[in-house]
């Protein structure tokens, strides 16, 4: 299955990855190979098999609505590359998409 340059661009944008022209070309080939490899799974007839989303076979695993201690603010922010006013700082985004 051949992935087009446009499809690579689209996937890269969704993954928030900036790609150069060369990378786009390169990935359209390498990802296509991966898809070919996975494609082999289609040889198995699964028409009578329900899709499996969860392998535990469990359902209705709930917890009671009780609270527990949270992390301290200091701990939470300790790995932040940048912080300000006890908040994580990131480059400005002004319009929520």
């Amino acid at each position, binding site marked *: 299955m051949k992935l087009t340059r446009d499809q690579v661009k689209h996937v890269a944008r969704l993954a928030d990855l900036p790609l150069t022209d060369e990378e786009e070309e390169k990935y359209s080939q390498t990802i296509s190979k991966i898809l070919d490899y996975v494609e082999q799974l289609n040889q198995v007839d699964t028409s009578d098999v329900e899709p499996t989303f*969860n392998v535990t076979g469990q359902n209705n695993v709930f917890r009671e*609505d009780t*609270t527990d201690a949270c992390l301290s603010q200091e701990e939470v922010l300790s790995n932040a590359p940048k912080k300000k006013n006890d908040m994580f700082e990131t480059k400005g985004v002004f319009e929520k998409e």
Partner: protein
Amino acid sequence: MTSLSLGGYMSNQKYEPVIGLEMHVELNTKSKMFCRCSADYFGREPNTHTCPICLGLPGALPYINKVAIEDCIKIGLALNCTVSEKSLFERKNYFYPDLPKGYQISQYRWPLCVNGWIEVDDGDGNKRKIRINRVHQEEDTGKLTHSGGVTLIDFNRSGVPLVEIVTEPDFHDVDTVRNYAKKLQRLFRYLGVSNADMERGDMRLEANVSVRPVGQKELPGYRVELKNINSFRFMVAAIEYEIKRQIKELEEGWTLKQETRGWDEDKKSTYLQRSKEEAHDYRYFPEPDLPEIRMKSDEIGKIRKSLPELSWDKQNRFIEEYGVKKSDAEILTELTELAEFFEVTVEHGKKHGVDAKAVANYIVNKKPNISVVLPTQIIEELKGKKVGVIENMGELGELADEVISENPAMVGVYKKGKVTVIQVLIGAIMRKTGGKVNPNKIREILKEKLR
């Protein structure tokens, strides 16, 4: 409100707006949706209500809050939905700084509740049936603050349970939208599932707006999404503006496109945020970390039984049972506490021959502070009114003459200059009449007669 009027575009009745709504309501559970952090985050120090799960740290696993699921089902049942036998969470993938995991745990193909409806009054008081497409469970995102060219993130809100309610495009005017939002707000409060405070962001509204020629049955081939408008008032203004803008564009021969627009409060107009070409691709897939939810009919029955009398049922009952006016019934059922106070007062009034309509009138017009005033006090006051305060001057004069002749000693003392004893005479008249006399008025009459 916007100063733009629909003018000729509306009065010619050529177009009909078609509006669908998506409402998000934040639940008031103690803990968050998938972790045990306190969900009581409002006004707290930033980043003090978080843990590895709601911060999306690697390896953290979500754990479903049972009460949130029950609350979501309660909302679904109240909106006449079918509760799905099988329900699944899915990952909605996108990048935004308020979403630490890179995806939101939401529902897509297997929502908890589907296919409901609710009746809402339009601007003319006619009942409109609004179909509910789905009521599903998801989690809230962190809160962003934009300042000085950077964006700051507080994750206290991240993972707070959120219920999304999606209608079919069944609204055709703004009044119905407004009434729908009000009706749902009241519902959430009755169910006790949310504080439903619009100003605090407990309830958020998104609208899909399009217009079509009157008489056309098919949905228009486009729709404009109004999003990220955090005030209910602005949302209503934005919908009104959009209807006008779209009709104008169509009249001028333009073709309308699928797009997302926001609201500019300064300019009182909507503006383009995103066109269809850049539309999102969320790549939903079932959340592998959460087992599916199976609801059996007896469990659903139990939740249904736990529902209180809903606001609109109470409203109808007040009208039928007590003969209360519709507008009064609406006010009386605004809060469960007020409705209860009304009913207790009516019950008490029955014993004293005071009817429910008088009680309704009193509460609606005088707006007594129900945490201070007692139902019995209201009945006492209404009883007084019912028999009537004695206003007739002749009658009051006779009463004065009576007590003067019955109390010669007091009259003597008064005439010797101890004028305060007039209080005794006033008291005697009050006792005789059961308090149905204005004391100041009777004082003047007594003074006159004792001169």
